[in-house]
């Protein structure tokens, strides 16, 4: 069981959250016409062994999307922040 720190609710069980996706992806500009750029965005992942930035949705809590940094080998979590604050 992961214990995920939510910036709003504090340390909560993994079962309260839904996993989102790799948080390093940036959707290309809608004017972008190079299919290669879209291909990379839709399909290609770094898939690191080690630290991974990822989105989680605190769906059974405050319902905020949060950004979590977690180690994919050990599952150690290094911290989290509200996505809307990071994105702003």
């Amino acid at each position, binding site marked *: *069981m*992961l214990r995920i720190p939510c910036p709003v609710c504090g340390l909560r069980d*993994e*079962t309260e959250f839904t*996993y989102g*996706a*790799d948080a390093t992806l940036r959707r290309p500009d809608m004017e972008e016409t190079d*299919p*290669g750029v879209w*291909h*990379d965005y*839709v*399909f*290609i*992942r*770094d*898939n*690191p*062994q080690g630290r*991974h930035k*990822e989105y989680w949705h605190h769906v059974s809590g405050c319902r905020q999307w949060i950004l979590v940094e*977690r180690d*994919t*080998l*050990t*599952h150690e979590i290094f911290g989290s922040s509200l996505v809307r604050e990071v994105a702003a």
Partner: protein
Amino acid sequence: MSQYSVLSILRHGLTGNKHWPRAWRDPAPKPSYDVVIVGGGGHGLATAYYLAKEHGIRNVAVLEKGWLGGGNTGRNTTIVRSNYMMPGNTIFYERSMQLWGNLSQELNYNVMMSRRGYYFVFHSPGQGEVLRRRANVMRANGIDAEFLDRAETMRRLPMLDYSATARFPIYGSFSQPRAGTARHDAVAWGFARAADKQGVDIIQQCEVMGYIWDKDKIVGVETTRGPIRANKVALAVAGHTSHLAAKAGLRLPIETHVLQAYVTEPLKPLVDHVIIYGGAHFYISQSDKGGLVLGGDLDGFNSYAQRGGLPTVEHTLQSAKALMPSISRLRLLRQWAGAMDMTMDGSPIIGKMPIEGLWLNGGWCYGGFKAIPASGYCFAWTLAKGEPHPDNAEFTLQRFERGYQIDESGAGPDPKAH
């Protein structure tokens, strides 16, 4: 290397089983090979075997960082089936099914292929229609498929919950009679022994750390047992593909996720087939030792840890109980997990990479055990001839750029959804 037979069992039995020879050699790595295969799971070992046997390429090494079959090949729930309906998948998995039929004889090693039949129970008319379509595609391709109504399903699978209070009512089932299970370790060991017999060097405790380059071409690997040169470097490392590809500067349409499996204490024969629950992602079969072998969903977030979390254990056991309430008081004996390559369309990649000298067999998601014979056969062909066999021609890396994903479950570009 001696041939295994009834006579050899009797002879060794009479001498106290003290004189069995090693099943394969333990050679030191040579400085160079024609082909170096990275990863001593079923796929790497089968590839080595077919390279030697079908193409006469015997100057081959299989490098394994741990022990043979210690990856997903030794961690899976051993289900073998060929009920695929997307072009590309259908013929490939059926070739595998055909190779499984004769594999014990081919390898002179009992892989315990048991064609006990596979049943997918469904819980709504709509779900039934989707499965009927799958059954029709299979039959149109000459693959066995049966469609059973509720009464016939009750007759064949009497241990399921058909009561009025069942969480999801059972409407019927879809079956592949030739499907079943095989013994996972025996598949790794059988291919290892047969490949060794053909002259292939199987080198354990040898981790590949990087590549030897000649300008922009890969000409070998750096390992924990020194550099080894090769004309072709072939990756078959299951959940570690991205990580080894990254060392060659390649980024792939893959994420690594964890899948768990469980086995209960042994019982008298209860589950004669492989049963898939359509109400959730859950499947069950019974091993020859009597333990019920259970599997379910991915843990759901990227992970290379070969261990699973408790929420998924709970979810899987809830499914087990919903399908077969009679097993609710059984105890689990063991639980384990494997780290797998999940591709963006749920289908594998076999072929030449954009870097000269590098070849890939990966992206097997949670369906790669059944694929081992055909994958070895096709990857060996691809390595030997420099072009894919017709049966793996669709499994290219380029299909993602070209919009030709092979999305068997129709889940879209989300690796954890396949």
